């Protein structure tokens, strides 16, 4: 499955990926906490202290540029790491790992659509790489901490029409990150970052009721067995999901339904338009407050000591805002052009034909 046309990842990125996975292993001690909130399984709120950056600042621009240069290298190194590779095969399958090996975001072909009298199109599942602590937040460790594998996660961003159920990254951003970093320039505040305890999210596309079932599946994928800590996390995640694929809860991915009224022609004049935006902002603030503790700051206002969140996610202080041990040098390396994959010459054995 290796891609001979792609250069291997450099040693420093491989070391950084290894560091990231070890940090993730330390993040929670009790895998049972993965199911604390079924709406957000495997997510902890990582309390950091940071300052929202002016997005026209040099720091923000440099962080963005540096990320663009290193992302491909990260994907390659992750697909090469023994644990990273097995976790990748579970989440994005062999097709996705092949793309990661060439430094590209993983996607896998699910099937094709062939409506009558319309062209054939691919239906795929997509995972994109995202920063956990947003690059728009200044932390103690600066760019070295933000642009580091321990601050990256590969998240499903598949969108099917109104259905945002396979787009958890948008859900996290809208629910937690945007309200806490909006209108807070030049202030250092506690920020509660949604941090997955897995490097790919969701980590699985099917349920596993037993460790034997998980091991059998990994073996069929040609993956090396996972260390026990990861097996336990996968099984807890599966249990929290009722052994079904993870979907963003309906109340969040369907909030776009019925918005037509708000954007009708009569709401186009500036005053009515502002009223629409205020209404939307109030809705977003209300939702965020249901999850965040009292010292969280939403749209520039601290919730207050008497605030009690309705939902309780595990809260950790990872300390991952400091400089990482294995830093990534900001060289000129860029993403490589992807070459057209060659079709396998042999049909896979039945035991390898895993639908993802």
């Amino acid at each position, binding site marked *: 499955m290796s891609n001979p046309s792609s250069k291997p990842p450099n040693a420093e990125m491989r070391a950084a990926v290894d560091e990231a996975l070890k940090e993730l292993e330390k993040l929670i001690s009790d895998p049972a906490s993965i199911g604390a909130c079924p709406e957000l399984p495997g997510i902890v709120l990582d309390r950091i202290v940071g300052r929202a950056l002016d997005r026209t600042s040099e720091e923000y621009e440099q962080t963005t540029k540096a990320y663009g240069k290193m992302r491909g290298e990260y994907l390659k190194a992750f697909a090469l790491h023994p644990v990273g590779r097995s976790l990748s095969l579970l989440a994005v399958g062999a097709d996705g790992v092949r793309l990661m090996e060439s430094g590209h975001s993983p996607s896998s*072909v699910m099937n094709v659509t062939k409506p009558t009298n319309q*062209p054939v199109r691919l239906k795929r599942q*997509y995972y994109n790489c995202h920063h956990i602590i947003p690059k728009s937040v200044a932390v103690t460790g600066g760019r070295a901490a933000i642009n580091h594998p321990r601050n990256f996660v590969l998240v499903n961003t598949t*969108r099917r029409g109104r259905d945002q159920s396979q787009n958890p990254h948008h859900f996290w951003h809208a629910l937690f990150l945007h309200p806490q970093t*909006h209108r807070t320039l030049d202030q250092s505040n506690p920020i509660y970052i949604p941090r997955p305890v897995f490097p790919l999210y969701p980590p699985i596309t099917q349920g596993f009721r037993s460790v034997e079932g998980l091991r059998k599946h990994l073996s069929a994928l040609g993956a090396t067995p996972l260390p026990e800590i990861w097996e336990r996390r996968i099984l807890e995640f599966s249990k929290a999901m009722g052994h079904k694929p993870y979907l963003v809860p309906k109340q969040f991915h369907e909030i776009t339904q019925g918005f037509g009224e708000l954007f009708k022609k009569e709401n186009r004049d500036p005053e009515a338009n502002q009223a629409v935006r205020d209404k939307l902002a109030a809705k977003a603030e209300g939702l965020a407050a249901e999850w965040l503790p009292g010292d969280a700051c939403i749209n520039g206002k601290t919730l207050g000591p008497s605030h009690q969140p309705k939902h309780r996610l595990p809260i950790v202080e990872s300390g991952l805002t400091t400089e990482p041990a294995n830093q990534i040098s900001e060289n000129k390396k*860029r993403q490589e052009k992807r070459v057209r994959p060659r079709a396998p010459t042999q049909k896979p054995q039945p035991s390898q034909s895993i639908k993802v």
Partner: protein
Amino acid sequence: MDLNEQLLRELSDLFLGDLRSSRYYQGLSADERANLEKQIARDAANGVRPLVPGASSDQIANLCAQAEAELGLTLPSSVLGVLTVVDGFVENGVSLYGADRDLNEEETVPGLVAQNLALWSSFPESAQKYLFVGDSELWFFAYEISSSSFVALSHSAMSPVHRFSGIEALVNDMLAQALGHFDEHSEDTKGTLQSQPPKLPGTDFSLN
């Protein structure tokens, strides 16, 4: 400026390669595979770019009606013109939104109306200010309604960091990012808002 047909063909070729090397394709029976190949060949014979087609006139008409009804917007003709050539794509974290499908049809790319409703509801300051046409891991790509221009927006601030000469330049840049076409000149591009697109060979914005 026109859409870069060479990049579109390259994307189509990549998608064909992805399909044929996929587990899905390998799992099809010989008959199913032959049938699928026949349909792809028929699309090509009809002048349709395999797996990266444009939207039909019916799909464009439906999209216009949905945008009027649900976004309260008349879609710019330039956006509609591009969608007739390429009805959205998703590759390497870069997504160009396409015409939304009816509820009984399967979506293969993010729908323009659905994505705008989702983004407007989550980022209220962007509502009816920007018409989002695509996104990447680093940027949103949008039509700025007040200036009738196409911009790249910072993901977290929803503020413009680059202004394109038109939607064709924007889509060409998205294609270049998706396919991994970069040149060293694009290194010089500043992330700050520019009144005029820079005169650079190759891509004019891609920092990714």
